[in-house]
């Protein structure tokens, strides 16, 4: 594809490192356009994404079902390596996808659940209600989204759960500074 046969790699050798520079192999895919160029690839992509949005509710429901199944496995088998990983991955996917699918509060609740799974020193000692409330909240947010006044309720529910989870994590990690630092560090994702 983007290929420049005349390119050469330049290696500058220093005492403890090398700096390797090669002519930009992707340079040829760049083209200069007039400032007035009306083609907007970002707008085009946003429109295409909007075209997919009809499927988002079903996708979100599938993600929520997967989370519920992972939680059921934990309740049945306890926290094993496999059940912990699946619960984390299901929550982590919702954390990353839910806002795109139009369920930002489900994403925020899933993030709180991820933090519990990642930072609790012993998952078997986490109050089972704390995890169950997160799972149930996500299910409810996904199921009840179409009703009026649920957006603010979902946001409040998510905020309350995050508060409780953070309080718990701060307490159980009081002697684990590296976890405490991670828990208290701000997210790199800008707030809504």
């Amino acid at each position, binding site marked *: *594809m*983007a*290929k*420049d*046969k005349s390119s*050469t*790699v*330049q*290696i*500058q*050798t*220093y*005492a*403890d*490192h*090398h*700096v*390797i520079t*090669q002519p930009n*192999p*992707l340079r040829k*895919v*760049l*083209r*200069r*356009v*007039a*400032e007035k*160029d009306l*083609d907007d*690839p*970002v707008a*085009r*992509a*946003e429109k*295409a*994404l909007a*075209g*997919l949005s009809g499927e988002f509710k079903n*996708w979100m429901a*599938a*993600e929520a079902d997967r989370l519920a199944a992972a939680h059921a496995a934990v309740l049945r088998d306890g926290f094993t390596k496999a059940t912990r*990983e699946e619960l*984390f*991955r299901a929550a*982590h*996917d919702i*954390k*990353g*996808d*839910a*806002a*795109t*699918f139009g369920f930002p509060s489900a*994403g925020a609740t899933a993030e709180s659940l991820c933090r519990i799974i990642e930072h609790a020193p012993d998952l078997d000692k986490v109050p089972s209600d704390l995890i169950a409330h997160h799972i149930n909240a996500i299910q409810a947010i996904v199921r009840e989204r179409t009703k009026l006044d649920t957006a603010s309720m979902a946001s409040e529910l998510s905020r309350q759960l995050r508060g409780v989870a953070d309080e718990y994590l701060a307490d159980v990690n009081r002697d684990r500074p590296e976890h405490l630092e*991670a828990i208290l*560090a701000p*997210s*790199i*994702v800008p707030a809504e």
Partner: protein
Amino acid sequence: MFRIDFNKLRFLVCDDNPHMRRILRTLLHSFGAREVYESEDGATALEMYSHYVPDIVITDWSMPIFDGLELAQMIRQPESKGNPFAPIIMLTGHSEKRRVTVARDAGVTEFLAKPISAKGLYQRILNVVANPRPFIKTKTYFGPDRRRNTANAYIGPERRIGGEVEVLQQPSLLDKARTSV
């Protein structure tokens, strides 16, 4: 103002979540890309990387067995037969600063935290296409220069040491990788 000819770029997308792969495929095709290869795990992605020699890799972090971080580390092997220089964009639900540092130290070129947006993805792609950074090889690291600040005022313990001793010219490893396919 510059635009990217996406139809000349070959992408490899690696994400275990089929919904996210669909979204990425939709966005890339809307940008104009024609060649988008997809993998649902790191091991398959590595095979596809060697086979298709993509121009840009977009990978999730968290995947079962062989994750995106390991994929980046496997690609960034300076002695490998493949192209170790391809830009790697890590698209992930991880949103903690320490994760960015870990990804950077694995040789990831750009980090994009979910939720994904068309604008965010386009900007990362534009950045790796228009502003590639030189690669640094040390005893413990091979990847794009981790210092985006070009000022030389830093004098701390992690300052690279040593004056320039020699400059070698050799054929592009990217070309070598492509001709070996």
